[in-house]
């Protein structure tokens, strides 16, 4: 099992059900987390995301005002907020393929079906902390690479176009400001 220093991680739990928020907070504190913030709907969640800048968001799907899916789409806007790459774990009672695909296409990083378990939640957190996937940006999508595994046996058209390109390191605004000239 991978060991994580939970007391350095900052979590934001977004769920309209107070009991579920309490259970999640209990589990996270049990793992050793100290910073766990909460919001009770999508709008408050977006505000808390902007304010607290969490490392990991754990959100419910079905919520008032706007739901977890819409929240993910709002966060996955490159340049529009402080951290569009933030890990989003979608926690929901919906586990049908159609729902999972919709969550994936909204830019959700991990999906965890209810009922929650300590082990399941821990595994999702380990995944996003230790093995983050690269992000893909196209005209219609920005989010974690939806291809979790490279399948050598795949037969079919390659939907992504273009050959290999040089890797370009993007400098932060801070580095730009500090660099002379």
């Amino acid at each position: 099992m991978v060991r994580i220093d939970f007391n350095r991680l900052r979590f934001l739990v977004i769920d309209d059900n107070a009991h579920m928020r309490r259970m999640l907070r209990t589990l996270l504190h049990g793992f050793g987390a100290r910073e766990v913030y909460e919001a009770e709907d999508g709008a408050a969640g977006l505000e808390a995301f902007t304010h607290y800048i969490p490392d990991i968001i754990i959100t419910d799907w079905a919520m008032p005002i706007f739901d977890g899916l819409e929240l993910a789409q709002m966060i996955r806007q490159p340049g529009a907020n402080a951290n569009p790459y933030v890990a989003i774990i979608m926690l929901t009672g919906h586990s049908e393929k159609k729902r999972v695909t919709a969550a994936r296409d909204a830019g959700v990083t991990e999906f965890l079906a209810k009922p929650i378990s300590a082990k399941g939640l821990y595994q999702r957190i380990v995944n996003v902390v230790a093995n983050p996937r690269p992000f893909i940006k196209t005209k219609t999508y920005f989010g974690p690479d939806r291809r979790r595994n490279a399948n050598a046996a795949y037969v079919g058209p390659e939907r992504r176009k273009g050959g290999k390109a040089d890797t370009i390191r993007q400098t932060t605004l801070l580095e730009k400001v500090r660099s002379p000239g």
Partner: protein
Amino acid sequence: MAPYKNTAAIATYGDHEVIKPENKLRKYVSDTPFVPGEDDPVARAEMALAALSGEFGAMMDEECARLDKERHAVMANGFTKANKEGLFHAAHDIKGQAATFGYPAVASAADSLCRLIEYTPDSSRIPAKLVDQHVDAVRAIYREYSRSDAQDLASMLTVRLREVTDEFLIHENRNRPDILEQITGAPSAVPE
């Protein structure tokens, strides 16, 4: 809070970019393996949840009361948008939480009610009696949970509710093949 700074390696291709953001969380991961007898965070979290379990009965009471209240709102004013969402969310929360609260047999009846609401194209056609039967089943299964035959009774009740619900849904969605496929059962796409 200070703004979050992130550097990213970007590889540009014909119609897409592959971006590798700096993993600022990696420094919180240790590759040192756990040794036997060492404090296990998962076990610790399970213990923390178990310590909370004394309150699960009261939480379930609240969820069942909420479901009943939403049922009465539907019966009084019909399936308005707000009433429909209220009843669905109440059932959906029970479906998601019942097992964690220690009442897994309650979840199936709540799930059947969610399906009834979600997959009926015209909510006004949902039989009030079927809604009543679902809500009463959820509450009865929870109330009688300590009985020795509770699991068997819950199973029989839920199977029958599901049969009646599926029969209704298949009829209501007879011209919607994509929905019919969902009703008749694709398995969960999410690993445990």
